[in-house]
């Protein structure tokens, strides 16, 4: 369990190329169809949480399963089809049990569960069995697959860098 990894997303690096969506739908469906992708890139109207430059106005965000610790979908499923994979830590939908009632889809606060019209069942990100294809094909490095205990480091680096920028900024450049 200490090797459990999570997908980490950096909106500042994302260029919105949708390679991840292409890779996901191709890997999981056998054919490329962006609407069937289990990861979705959406464009923000506003800016990111920590805005540094004006470029940050064009911000992309990712919608995919967060593999929550206390998932609501797991409670809602009347067939107990949502299970935790002990190896990867991913929540998976057991398609031998799923009856396609959409309860998990309705309950997901991240809107990360999709309904597959061909299978008549719901599908979600299952971390591709431990090798997420979205991360593998991410062109800009915005998506990373890091161990749980290291996932906080990029954010710490970012904050540290921002602090330095604030400290070394010359006084006359102050906007007010």
């Amino acid at each position: 369990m200490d090797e459990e990894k999570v997908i980490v997303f950096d909106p500042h690096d994302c260029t919105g190329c949708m390679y991840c969506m292409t890779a996901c739908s191709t890997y999981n469906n056998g054919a490329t169809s962006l609407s069937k992708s289990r990861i979705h890139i959406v464009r923000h109207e506003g800016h990111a949480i920590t805005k540094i430059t004006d470029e940050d106005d064009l911000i992309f965000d990712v919608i995919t399963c967060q593999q929550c610790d206390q998932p609501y979908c797991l409670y809602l499923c009347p067939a107990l089809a949502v299970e935790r994979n002990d190896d990867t830590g991913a929540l998976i939908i057991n398609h031998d049990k799923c009856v396609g009632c959409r309860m998990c889809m309705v309950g997901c606060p991240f809107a990360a569960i999709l309904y597959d019209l061909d299978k008549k069942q719901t599908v979600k990100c299952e971390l591709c069995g431990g090798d997420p294809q979205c991360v593998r094909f991410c062109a800009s490095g915005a998506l990373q697959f890091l161990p749980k205990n290291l996932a906080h480091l990029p954010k710490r680096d970012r904050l540290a860098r921002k602090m330095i920028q604030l400290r070394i900024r010359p006084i006359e450049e102050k906007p007010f």
Partner: protein
Amino acid sequence: MAVRIEKDENRKRFVVVGNGIAGISAAYTIRRYNKEAKIIIISEEPHPTYSPCLLPNYLSGEISRERVFIRELSDYSKDNIQFITSEKVMTLDRERKSVVLQAENIAYDKLIIATGSKPRIPSIKGIHRKGVFTFKSIEDADIICRWQGRTAVVIGSGPIGVEASLALKRRGYQVFLIELLDRILPQVFDEYPASLIQDVLKENGIDLANQERVIEILGGEHVEGVVSDRRKIECDTVLLATGMRPEKGFVEGILELGKLGGIKVNDRMGTSIQDVYACGDCAEAQSLIDGRPILSLLWHNARQQGEVAGSNAAGIPRIYTGSLHITVVDVFGLKAVSIGNIGTGLGTDLEIIEVRRNGGYRRLVLSNGVLVGVQSINWDENLGIFLAAILRKEKVKTYQDLSSIRQSRLNALKQFPFGRKLTLRYSQRVK
């Protein structure tokens, strides 16, 4: 000597009465926290645990009978849980801390009552005739599957009534659906969304009648027809879907009951007697929206209550936040979803926001500016955002407050901090 006492402490006896989802989730929660404990599940039924929510799918023939079961008999012994089937608990001996079965007494340190609910049988003349069914247990479904009928009258149009009608229609029956109130699914949908569902039901050949009261079921030994206050219908099958009542059985007169007829519980699912917990359909917990007592006869509430009762019994305090209604009905491809309250019993300060898009319809119910419920027809993307907003008791002014992706994303992260802790990190751009 000290060692022995410690060991006895670990070998506590937990007795769970009832083999529904609440009972087994309580039992498995105890097992997760306490590997040594002796756990006994007592069930009236001979089967392992099954999901009543899947019975309509079984009745319509979509899934096999095996798939209704979510546990096998061998699964219990794997987790070292003793499973006593086909035994009815007669009474509870609170002085000696034991439950009394027909042949034996079983002592407990902690008792969890999860006896579930039974269908409410209305007092209609001729209700005893052959061909009148209820639809709650797997036996009911088996009997209806074996029954050779052509025309069915379904009395009551709650979610069970509607799903049973759809299943019977798929089995080739001609179906009449009779509702006493002015609309279908009266507890979970308002007039307009209910009328949309009614239109689809009628288009697909289900004979639907509102504001109609069934007076008598005709026939000799077998059902031959139904008389209502408006008409006479010839039929050979009658299915009662007139609601559920909590099954209190052996605890009546021993435990304190609530106003609605369930076992009164506090927010840790404890009852009026120490070391006795109740969870699932038989318990009367508080509503998540307004905190009033509510009977929540739904799967996910039972499962959460079972976990809370189990972890409190095992000595790990946990608080139940409250019950919430979530109903999903698929009516011939029309996806109808209702989350939370439709606005009944919340006072007069209600506000409704209606949104229509691409043939889809959404209705948000606000009470004092706080989102308390949402109903959605044919538009089921991103509905979890509204669920998260209801859980957070969020103040909403316009629909766009919630539908903007960024806003909803942030809201969801606030509600589910675990998800945020694990995966969402905004990192530094490397220059």
